[in-house]
């Protein structure tokens, strides 16, 4: 544990030195030096300049993630359970993913307005797919012996789902959730690219417009931290709920 933290620090230091070396001869407009970025970050945080933007983006992420993951999970379960639905809906699921959200900005604005709704919808759209796909797969690969057991116990489809397929598929479902959580950060930011005036994504666009690259990098660092916290959060949940799965894991 200690050792990892030590090397982690070392790697971070190396990265920072590398960054400094690359940034040194480069214009601050293109790649600012780490010091400049951290000063910007510190100023922005201590002056409270970032706060409303952070809160806004976090709200969007949380809302979008909740909606997107609920949808993804439910749809994943339904499509995993009902072959017919899977075949029927999959083209639309793919369409929802393969179409770049940025391209549909006017429609999103038209339907969901300039406010937070359109950003939440975009976040939800982006993060629902990994969870859907993993849930769908996890549910289909349940141990047939256990399915037999539930069949003989006269379990309904729903009971089998809740008591067998979902708990058995939890590790895979959580892997999907981890991907979703990280994508949600990107989703919210992309959403804010489209007609946002608040939030970290809007801040990125604004900083690009003003060519204030240190500010932009400070925002990127904030986003990375957010993604990491969310990811660690999922791991924490996993640790709590999957204790038993873990038991056999380490020799």
């Amino acid at each position: 544990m200690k050792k990892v933290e030590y090397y982690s620090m070392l790697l971070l230091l190396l990265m920072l030195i590398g960054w400094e070396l690359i940034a040194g001869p480069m214009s601050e407009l293109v790649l600012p030096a780490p010091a400049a970025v951290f000063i910007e970050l510190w100023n922005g945080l201590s002056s409270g300049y970032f706060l409303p933007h952070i809160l806004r983006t976090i709200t969007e992420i949380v809302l979008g993630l909740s909606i997107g993951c609920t949808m993804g999970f439910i749809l994943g379960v339904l499509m995993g359970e009902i072959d017919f639905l899977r075949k029927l809906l999959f083209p639309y699921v793919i369409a929802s993913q393969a179409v770049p959200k940025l391209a549909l900005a006017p429609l999103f604005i038209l339907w969901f307005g300039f406010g937070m709704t359109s950003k939440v919808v975009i976040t939800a759209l982006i993060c629902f797919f990994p969870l859907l796909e993993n849930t769908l797969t996890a549910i289909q690969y349940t141990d047939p012996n256990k399915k037999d057991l539930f069949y003989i116990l006269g379990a309904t489809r729903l009971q089998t789902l809740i008591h067998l397929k979902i708990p058995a598929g939890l590790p895979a479902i959580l892997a999907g959730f981890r991907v979703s959580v990280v994508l949600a950060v990107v989703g919210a930011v992309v959403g804010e690219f489209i007609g946002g005036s608040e939030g970290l994504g809007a801040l990125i666009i604004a900083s690009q417009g003003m060519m204030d690259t240190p500010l932009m990098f400070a925002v990127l660092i904030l986003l990375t931290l957010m993604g990491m916290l969310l990811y660690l959060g999922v791991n924490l949940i996993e640790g709590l709920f999957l204790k038993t799965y873990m038991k056999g894991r380490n020799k």
Partner: protein
Amino acid sequence: AAKDKDAAGSKQIEEVKVASWSQPITEQTNLLAGEEKSFYKENGIKVNFIPGAGGGDAIKNILTGAADIAFTDPGSLYFALDKGEKLRVIYNIYPQNVFNVVSLTEKNITKPEDLKGKKIGVYSHSSGTRQNLLLLLHQAGLSEKDVTIVETGLLNFAPLMQGQVDATAATDTGLETGKQKGLSDVNVIEVKDYLNIPSDVFVVTEKTYQEKKDLLISFLKGYQQSAQWMIDNPQEAASLAVKLAIDGKDVNSNLKIIDLRNSSSLSSDPKDKTLGALDPEVLQKGADIYQGLGLIENKLDMPQAVIQDLIPKK
């Protein structure tokens, strides 16, 4: 063709990398037509077009050395100068301000003052539409706080037609395209009537200016010829754009766009018929307003940044 190559070889064709603020689009047909026409070849150069997404990209691309010359807007130039970059303006691509603010007639917005309290769309917060809107508002004694600015993306007329915004900031070509797509009954406030700062300029770094002066002169010569050619042969340019520009699907719309750009390439000063002539004072005025708006921090010395002597005189 083989002969051509030899000739070119002996003349030592040099490559000039031009970073644009956009993809290769119809209005830049003269810049893109290096293969088809001989403006650049004759001057011993070859243009390599580097696409971008915004004037900021163009400047960043010359700062990194990925390109020699930036095809960018004064706003981005001001921002970069404000950050202490050593940049030189060498050519005035469009002396005319092509930005405008469009609204449906029923809203009765005819002058900048009418915009007070309105919701106005811009392409994006990093685009020229926003900065020019701010300039316009400034001329009317208004500021960003007096209006609501929202980003509407490139399809900015859609929310206007749907009534989600009261007005939208656009460019002349954008407006023209919008009209072709069924936008009608609109009032247009043209920014140039209030403050006619150039729309696009060629910018280089101090280093490039010092080290590649000859190359720049050759390029500007070629570019000037090409601009003249486009003014003289809009029809030919429009047909070439079908092949060269990513948005040049339709010859007729190409022609309209090229016509608009041709007219904005000409200086409004009837005495100065030189294409590309720079007016440091206008640029200085723009910079001062930017500073007044709080967009930039420092007072810029534009005459010092403007290089007039590379522009070929007739």
